[in-house]
């Protein structure tokens, strides 16, 4: 089309972008504000970031998030990759149905998943803690890993595995020497995605965590509720940057040849 884009459309787009990003930018900027209560700019400071180090609850929350995140990532990466392999390479009854079913955990509201898991653990009298959180996170992360790895598998040249076999490599050797190296960026990408989802999760975690096992989002939620100090801005900024970097890496990996 040769007609230029109408000015008002560009204006509207700019406003929307503003709306989408301004609140977070403001949040980040004010994490450096040298003032505890006022939203007036009083000078640049890193004290709120330093305060974070001094807060045991934040450090404990971070530790919990990292433990749960790592465990959930590894488990869902392995399970998800196996599932993706089954969907991509095997012919079996119910394959279509399973592919569709994978979307259900993604579509289900977090509140529903959280509640139902709480009920399960209560019924089994299983104590709530880091284990239950990990179990819950794996349950919703698997779908994401499968989607990413499946996309990579489907884009993969099927002849590669056949070429390896005709050159003398049996199924197991072919898998390790040819399939996995090809798949690796996809698996890593899916893993990073899973870690990010796990790290950021609040709703589901809030239902399946016990008193001593608060993850970072839960601690932050508590801080938001109690409306304390700009430390919230500081921890929010850190979380923002950390996850942005992870997602960027996941995206690069997903595109890697």
């Amino acid at each position, binding site marked *: *089309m040769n*007609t230029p884009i109408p000015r008002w459309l*560009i204006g509207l*787009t700019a406003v*929307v*972008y503003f*709306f*989408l*990003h301004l*609140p*977070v930018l*403001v*949040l980040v900027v004010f994490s450096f504000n040298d003032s505890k*209560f*006022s*939203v*007036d700019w009083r000078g640049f400071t890193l004290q709120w970031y330093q305060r974070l180090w001094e807060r045991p609850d934040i450090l404990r929350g971070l530790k919990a998030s990292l433990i749960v995140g790592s465990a959930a990532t590894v488990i869902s990466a392995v*399970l998800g990759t*196996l*599932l993706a392999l*089954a969907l991509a390479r*095997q*012919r*079996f*009854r119910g394959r279509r149905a*399973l592919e569709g079913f994978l979307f259900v*955990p993604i*579509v*289900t*509201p*977090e*509140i*529903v*998943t959280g*509640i*139902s*898991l709480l*009920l*399960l653990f209560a019924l089994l009298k299983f104590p709530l803690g880091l284990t239950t959180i990990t*179990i819950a996170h*794996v*349950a919703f992360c*698997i779908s994401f890993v*499968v989607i990413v790895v499946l996309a990579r598998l489907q884009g993969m040249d099927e002849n590669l595995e056949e070429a390896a076999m005709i050159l003398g490599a049996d*199924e*197991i050797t072919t898998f390790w020497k040819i399939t996995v190296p090809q798949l690796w960026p996809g698996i890593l990408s899916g893993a990073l995605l899973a870690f990010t989802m796990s790290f*950021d999760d*609040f*709703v589901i975690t809030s*239902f399946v965590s016990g008193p001593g096992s608060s993850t970072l*989002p839960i601690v*932050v939620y508590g801080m*938001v*509720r109690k*409306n304390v100090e700009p430390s919230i801005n500081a921890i*929010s900024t850190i*979380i*923002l940057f950390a*996850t*942005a970097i992870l997602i960027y890496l996941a995206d690069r990996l997903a595109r890697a040849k």
Partner: protein
Amino acid sequence: MGAFRERALAWLYSRPEARAWALLAPAGFWLVAFFLVPLLIMFVYSLMPRGIYGGVEPGFTLAHYTRFFDPLYLQVLQRTFAWSIACTVICLVLGYPVAYVIARSRRWRTLLLFLVVLPFWTSFLVRTFAMIFLMRDTGLINSWMLKLSVIQEPLTILYTPFAVMTGLVYGFLPFMILPIYASLEKLDPSLHEAAEVLGARPLARFRRVTLPLSMPGVVAGSLLVFIPALGSFLTSDLLGGAKQVMIGNLVQNQFSSARNWPFGSAASFIVMALVLAAVMWYLRVKDAGARIEPAK
């Protein structure tokens, strides 16, 4: 080791279905045990009478579901529905133009797309807090308006329906923009040229070529906003306070202060049913639409 490998290979090769199931089993088990079974338990609980401490006791009752005919709870359902629809419409109105501009721009496209995708991945909690930071009585908006003497006293922005709606739109807008962009981007530019040659002016071209062909994206985007809005909890919790109750908050309440697990399960099941209904509707519409899409 060699013999084991031989036997493993022979077994793998001889029974393709077994091979498939071996790969599926771990993830399958996890999903069944920790996703399906809990949902089943929730459904069963919703049909049992409430026990003394808020749990359940043996029996069967539909009371928890019929309770939704009570105006108090009906209102919650209506409000949730209304707000979800309103949010979808607003996102559509704001999102479509943005998607259009991105699809039309060549130089800035990557950057613009990146800026839309970025909010997707930042923590929802953090973004909601950003809203609070702006909207609360001592927040940025109020303090600047006071400073510029636009108002004399702080405006109550937080804990109003307006705050919740803003929060919902802010949270879900990227979900609307991306599918519409994807749909527009696939549009064959020669269709516009053909329309132009046939005498159609820009507005007519939009109305009769662009808009109908971008419908799949519009429908997808609408669903990607509507469904999470239905089940949303955090936004109304943090931005709405005690008064702007959506169904998500109702559910959460039953599991904390109200201590009524079966009722909470029923409410939860209703949300789930609404979401699934929306998804099924979308799948039907998608298949019907696929037959009308232009041949490439």
